[in-house]
C-alpha cells in the first residue's frame, strides 16, 4: 500500500510540468540559432517560460535565478527536423511501435499526437544530449498519406505535444509508388483523387458519402486533408529524385493552397534553383551520399551546402535513419557539414549556418520559427548550456531547460552504465545495485 501511494505521488508530480522559473544565464558563448555567429559574454533571460532577451549587454531582471555559464556555449535546444521520437520504444517490438499501421483503413486521418509517450526511453536519452523539440511524423502504410504529425518537446513531464496535427506527411517517389499499388502514376492518381475527394468534402461535409472500407477516402481522411488543402498546415513530402521533386513543385501550381515541405531530397542540389524559386523548404538527410536506390543516384554530402548556396531554406532531418531513437545524431551531421567545407570541390556550411540547420531552420520549415528554434525574444525558453562545442563529437549539455524548466539529464542508459561500470558482482547480485 505504501508503495502504491508513493508511486501515485510520483505520477502526480511528474504529470504536470514543473513551474517555469525566471532564469538568467550569463557569461555565455551565446548562439542565437538563426545563423548568426556566437557572441562572447552573452546573456539569456527567460521569463514565464519564454525568452525575453538574449545578447550582449542584456540587463538581468531582479529576482531571477542566475546561472553563470562560465564562458561555455549556450544555445537554443536542438530541434530534430524529422523523427519518430516518442511513438516508438523498440522498433522491432510491434506493440511498442506506433509509427505506422499498414492494416488500418485510415491514412491521412491518423494522428500521432495521442500516441506520443513522454516516458518512451528515447525521449530522456535525446534530452540528455540537448534535443528539446522534435518533429514527429507517422510512417505510411497502405496509402501515400501517412497521417498527421506533431511537434513535441522532450521535457520530463506528461505534456509533450507542442503542436498536434502540425503537418500531414506523405510518401512520394519509390515509397509512394509502392504504397499506391506499384507505380508513380498510381501515386499521382491516389494523390489527386484524395485531394479532389477532400475538396468535395470541404464544399459540403454533410453530403460526403463515407463508403467505409470500400472508400477511396474515408470521411476522417477527407477531414484531415482540409488544413492541407487550405495551407493551414504544411504537407511534408518524402521525395528523393530530382524529377520527383520537380513534380512536387508542380503540384503546388495545381493545388494553390498547398504548402509542400520536401523531406529527404537527396537529389535536391541538382534542381536547387527551382526549389528556391518555388519557396519550398527542405528537411534534408545530411550525410546520405550513397546511391542507395535509383531515386538517389546523385547522392552527395554536398547536397545541403549546394541547396543553401542556391537560396533554399534547408534544415537537417533523419528520415529512415534511426529517427525513433537517434535524433541526437543531428549534431554530428551538422558538424560533418562544417568539415566538408574544407574539401576542394565539396560544399559544406560554416559553423553558424550548420547550427541553424538543427535549430531555427527546422522550426521555420514547419512554420514555427516564431515559437521555437532560436533564442530570439518571444521564443520558448528551450536553452542548453554545453560543456564544449555542441557540434563537436562528445560535447554534452550540462544543463537543459525546456519552456524555462530545468530538466533531469539521467536516463536508463546512465543507470545501466553506473550499474556495470565495474562488471563484477559486489556482494549481492547486480539486481540489487542501483
Amino acid at each position, binding site marked *: 500500500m505504501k508503495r502504491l501511494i508513493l508511486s501515485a505521488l510520483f505520477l502526480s508530480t511528474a504529470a504536470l510540468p514543473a513551474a517555469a522559473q525566471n532564469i538568467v544565464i550569463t557569461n555565455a558563448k551565446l548562439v542565437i540559432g538563426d545563423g548568426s555567429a556566437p557572441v562572447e559574454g552573452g546573456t539569456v533571460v527567460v521569463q514565464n517560460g519564454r525568452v525575453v532577451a538574449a545578447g550582449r549587454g542584456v540587463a538581468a531582471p531582479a529576482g531571477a535565478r542566475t546561472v553563470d555559464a562560465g564562458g561555455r556555449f549556450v544555445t537554443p535546444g536542438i530541434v530534430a527536423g524529422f523523427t519518430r521520437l516518442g511513438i516508438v*520504444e*523498440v*522498433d*522491432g*517490438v510491434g506493440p511498442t511501435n506506433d509509427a505506422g499501421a499498414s492494416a488500418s483503413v485510415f491514412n491521412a486521418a491518423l494522428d500521432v499526437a495521442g500516441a506520443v509517450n513522454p516516458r518512451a*526511453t*528515447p525521449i530522456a536519452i535525446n534530452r540528455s544530449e540537448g534535443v528539446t523539440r522534435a518533429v514527429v511524423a507517422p510512417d505510411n502504410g497502405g496509402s501515400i498519406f501517412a497521417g498527421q504529425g506533431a511537434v513535441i518537446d522532450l521535457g520530463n513531464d506528461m505534456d509533450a505535444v507542442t503542436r498536434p496535427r502540425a503537418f500531414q506527411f506523405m510518401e512520394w517517389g519509390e515509397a509512394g509508388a509502392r504504397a499506391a499499388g506499384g507505380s508513380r502514376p498510381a501515386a499521382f492518381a491516389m494523390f489527386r483523387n484524395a485531394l479532389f475527394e477532400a475538396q468535395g468534402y470541404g464544399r459540403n461535409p454533410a453530403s460526403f458519402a463515407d463508403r467505409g472500407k470500400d472508400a477511396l477516402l474515408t470521411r476522417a481522411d477527407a477531414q484531415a486533408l482540409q488544413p492541407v488543402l487550405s495551407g493551414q498546415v504544411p504537407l511534408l513530402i518524402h521525395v528523393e529524385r*530530382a524529377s520527383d521533386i520537380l513534380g512536387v513543385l508542380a503540384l503546388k501550381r495545381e493545388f494553390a493552397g498547398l504548402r509542400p515541405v520536401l523531406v529527404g531530397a537527396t*537529389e535536391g542540389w*541538382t534542381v536547387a534553383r527551382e526549389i528556391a524559386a518555388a519557396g519550398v523548404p527542405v528537411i534534408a538527410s545530411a*550525410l*546520405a*551520399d*550513397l*546511391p*542507395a*536506390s*535509383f531515386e*538517389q*543516384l*546523385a*547522392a*552527395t*554530402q*554536398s547536397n545541403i551546402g549546394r541547396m543553401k548556396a542556391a537560396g533554399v531554406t534547408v534544415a537537417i532531418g533523419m528520415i529512415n535513419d*534511426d529517427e*525513433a*531513437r*537517434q535524433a541526437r545524431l543531428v549534431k*554530428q551531421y551538422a*558538424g*560533418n557539414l*562544417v*568539415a*566538408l567545407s*574544407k*574539401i*576542394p*570541390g*565539396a560544399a559544406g556550411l560554416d559553423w553558424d549556418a550548420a547550427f541553424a540547420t538543427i535549430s531555427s531552420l527546422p522550426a521555420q520549415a514547419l512554420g514555427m520559427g516564431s515559437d521555437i528554434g532560436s533564442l530570439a525574444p518571444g521564443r520558448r525558453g528551450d536553452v542548453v548550456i554545453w560543456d564544449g562545442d555542441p*557540434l*563537436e*563529437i*562528445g*560535447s*554534452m549539455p550540462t544543463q537543459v531547460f525546456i519552456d524555462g524548466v530545468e530538466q533531469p539529464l539521467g536516463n536508463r*542508459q546512465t543507470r*545501466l*552504465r553506473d550499474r*556495470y*561500470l565495474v*562488471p*563484477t558482482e559486489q556482494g549481492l547480485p*547486480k539486481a540489487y545495485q542501483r
Partner: protein
Amino acid sequence: MLALAGGLAACANAGAQDARTASAAETPQGPGRGPGAGKGYDHDPYPSTYHPYPGQPTLVTNVTILDGEGGRIDGGSILFRDGKIVEVAQTIAAPAGATVIDGQGKWVTPGIIDVHSHLGDYPSPGVDANSDGNEMTGPVTAEVWAEHSVWPQDPGFGRALANGGVTTLQILPGSANLMGGRSVTLKNVYGRTMQAMKFPGAPYGLKMACGENPKRVYGSKGRLPSTRMGNIALDRATWLRARDYDRKWDKYEADGGEAPTRDLAMDTLRGVLDGEILVHNHCYRADEMAIVMDMANEMGYRVTAFHHAVESYKIADLLRARGVCSAVWADWWGFKMESYDGIGENLAILDRQGACAMIHSDDANGIQRLNQEVAKVMASARRAGIPVTKEHAWTWLGINPARALGIDRVTGSLRAGKMADVVLWNGDPFSVYTRPDKVWIDGALLYDAGNPRLRPVSDFELGQPGEGDVK
C-alpha cells in the same frame, strides 16, 4: 596507460590460450596453409590476385602520428617505399627521390580496419537483384562463402575509402542463420573481380549468429529454431557432425585409404575446429554470449570475436578470461529487443577490464565515420571516469581489428615492414571537423582530397548524375 597495457594483453592472451592459434602466429596463416593442405583438398580455390598499385617513396614530416598499437609521436615522420612502411620516427632524413609532404597540423594513422561490413554483398543500390548477403533458406549454411556474393562495383567501397579512410574490411554473410557462411577480408581497392580485392593470406572467418534473427527467420517458417534453446541445440548438433567429419579427414590425411565424401559446410566447420578459420559471432545479449563460450569449449573451437555485442560490458570479466574480443558500435541501441541495453560506454568498460575490444560498422554509412564513432566512445569514457588516450583509442581501429582478422602481422599499425596502409588526416581524426586528406594502400596513393583524379568512381556510377562528385 594501464588501460592500454590491459587491452593489448587481453588480445595477446587470446592467442596464447589456444595452441593452434599460437602456432599459427609463428607461421604465415591463411587459405591453403591449414592442416591437410596439399593432400586432402584445396583450401584456397579462389585465390587472391590482388597486387599493390604503384606508389612513390613518400615521407610525411612534422605530423602527429598515432601508430595504431598505442604509440604516438608529435611532430614525427613516417617513410614508406615499395608498398611497405620503412620507418616511423621523430625525424627521418628525406631519401633521394622521395615525395615529401609537410604534415603540419595534420595527423597520420594506419588505415582503418572494419571487421564487420556487408559492402559488396548488400551493395548500393539496395535493390533485390543485388541483395546477396543472407542465404535465408536454411538455418545452417556454412557452405556459402560471402566472397561469392561480393559485387566489386559497390559504390560503398569508394565512400569508405574517401570519407572513412578504410583500407581493409571483412565482408560477412548476414545474420539470419546460425552459421551463415564464410567471410572474406578485402583490401579496399576497386578490382574487376572479387579476387583482385582479396587480402592476400588473410584467414577465412565463419559468421555465426545467436539470438533473435535465426529464431525469428526460421521460427516464422515453422521450423527449428524458433527459440534461443533451439538455436543452441541446432548449433551443437551441427558441431557434433563437424567433429565427426574432422576425424574422418584427419585419419584420411594421416593414413590414406578412401577419401571421405566432401561436404562444403563441413569443410568450413572443420577449418574452425582446426584453427584455420576464425569464428565471428553476431550476438547481443551477455547471457547468450556466456552460453556460446561454453558451447565453444564443449565442441573444441574458439570464438575470435562477438560482433555487435551490445551487452559485452556486463560480462567484460568473462570475456577477458576467455580471451574473446568484442566488435561493437559506439551508440546503437533499441532497434530491437536484444539491443535494448546498449550503452555508449560498452567499448570503454571492456577495454578498462582488459578485454579485447574494437569498433565496427555493419553499415555502409557508419563505415565512413568509424573514427568519429571511436570519438564518441572516448567522450562517454571520459564522463564515466575512464581515461582513454587518443593513441590508445586508435588500437580499436587498428591493431585490435587486425588481430581479430588474423592479419596483424602485416597491417593494423605503423610499424616498419608492414603494409603501407596509411591515412593522412587534415586534422585530429577524433574531431567532427576532420576528413581524410590522403589515403595510401600498400603505399599507393588511392585517394587525395586535393586531386579530383584520385577519387574512385565505380562502374555503376559512371555516366549517372553526380558522377565524380565529391562524395
